């Protein structure tokens, strides 16, 4: 590989636009090239430091806040147990459900949740109630049993951060007892800045709502999303 080509590919790598094919070419050009490997490592290190200093979402403060949230989650996990679950059997056998802390005192939000559940049920009945039309009746979908939860974790994008999906989707990652759980979030009122921020880095968050399992994934229907500073 010529020096010019090496620099061309290095530029693409540092710009975040290196394709898989080009990455493979760069790898081949680096094999047994100690000096180039060292040069690449130095560039990666140097521009990583520059990025940390100039990207607000990657500042030392943002990093520390993120870590503190994870530490809190870890400590909470070791100090508390699940208090109640409306239906423990709702958790799939192959994916253990996170043991989430529920509020110890019933709060007004529970009344809101109850009301929301009633409205949701009414809507479900309205949508799936057999109609006198020529169209075939859609199959009735039995809503899965949900658990009320309040949890602290990190808001992350399943595309930008987790690389699990092709499109951006908000999820909440919870760490407990050294395990990691990811709950896909369904929420009509995601704060605008959170949508962008969770693509850059994990955002500490407090979430409340109901969790159920759908197609082997845990879904959180959120009634509250609050970024933790």
């Amino acid at each position, binding site marked *: 590989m010529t020096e010019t080509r090496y620099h061309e590919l*290095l530029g693409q790598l540092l710009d975040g636009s290196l394709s898989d094919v080009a990455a493979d070419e760069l*790898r081949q050009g*680096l094999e047994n090239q100690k000096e180039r*490997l060292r040069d690449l*490592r130095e560039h990666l290190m140097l521009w990583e430091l*520059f990025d940390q200093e100039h990207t607000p979402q990657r500042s030392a403060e943002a990093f520390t806040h*993120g870590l503190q949230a994870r530490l809190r989650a870890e400590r909470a996990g070791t100090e508390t147990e699940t208090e109640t679950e409306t239906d423990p059997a709702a958790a799939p056998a192959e994916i253990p459900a996170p043991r989430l802390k529920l509020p110890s005192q019933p709060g007004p939000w529970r009344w809101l949740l109850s009301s929301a559940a009633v409205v949701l049920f009414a809507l479900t009945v309205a949508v799936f109630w057999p109609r006198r039309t020529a169209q075939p009746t859609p199959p009735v979908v039995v809503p899965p049993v949900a658990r009320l939860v309040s949890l602290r974790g990190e808001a992350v994008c399943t595309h930008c951060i987790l*690389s699990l999906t092709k499109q951006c989707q908000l999820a909440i990652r919870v760490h407990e007892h050294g395990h990691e759980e990811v709950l896909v979030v369904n929420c009509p009122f995601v704060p605008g800045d959170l949508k962008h921020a969770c693509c850059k880095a994990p955002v500490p968050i407090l979430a409340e709502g109901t969790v159920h399992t759908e197609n082997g994934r845990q879904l959180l229907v959120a009634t509250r999303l609050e970024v933790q500073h």
Partner: protein
Amino acid sequence: MVRATLPLPSADARVATVEALVQEHQAGVRAFLRALGVEAAWVDDLAQETFLVAYRKLDDWDRGRDAGQWLRGIARHLAVNERRKAARRARLLAGGLGDLLLEHSERERERDPEPDAAAPTAELLEALHTCLQELPEAGRDLLRRRYADGERAESLAAQMETRADAMRQKLLRLRLLVKGCVERKIGRSWA
């Protein structure tokens, strides 16, 4: 340099110790992970995992050993683990680049059992700041827009009505200038 006190009386003391370690070493650990071939988007995540592991294993920390070196050892271990988990390989640079960098680093480690000790983060940052000041203002501004505003070469090129590859070339020239300057100031390799 952070030194933990023995015994660690409570979880709060452990957290305080880890927070002190974070304050002193977070930048270096993140830079170290990136140089090991971790994808940019995953660097902070793995670095946070590094400090979480440190929190759990605080009692295992040999206090006679430099904390930064200990943390980089944990970080290296986590990065190596990423190679073993097929589903997580997206956390490493694609095309086998991550593998190559990790293997190279492992080989270096076999030659020198304590290579992680030599990562002069503070010195690097100081040199970086000085060298940026030596750049023409337009160049500094371009780099700032690339990083602070998160604009890729394509979007910068569109705004400046030039081609993306020309913009990438311009950015690379600036990076080479800065790196050359840092090399002169530090006088030795840093990775």
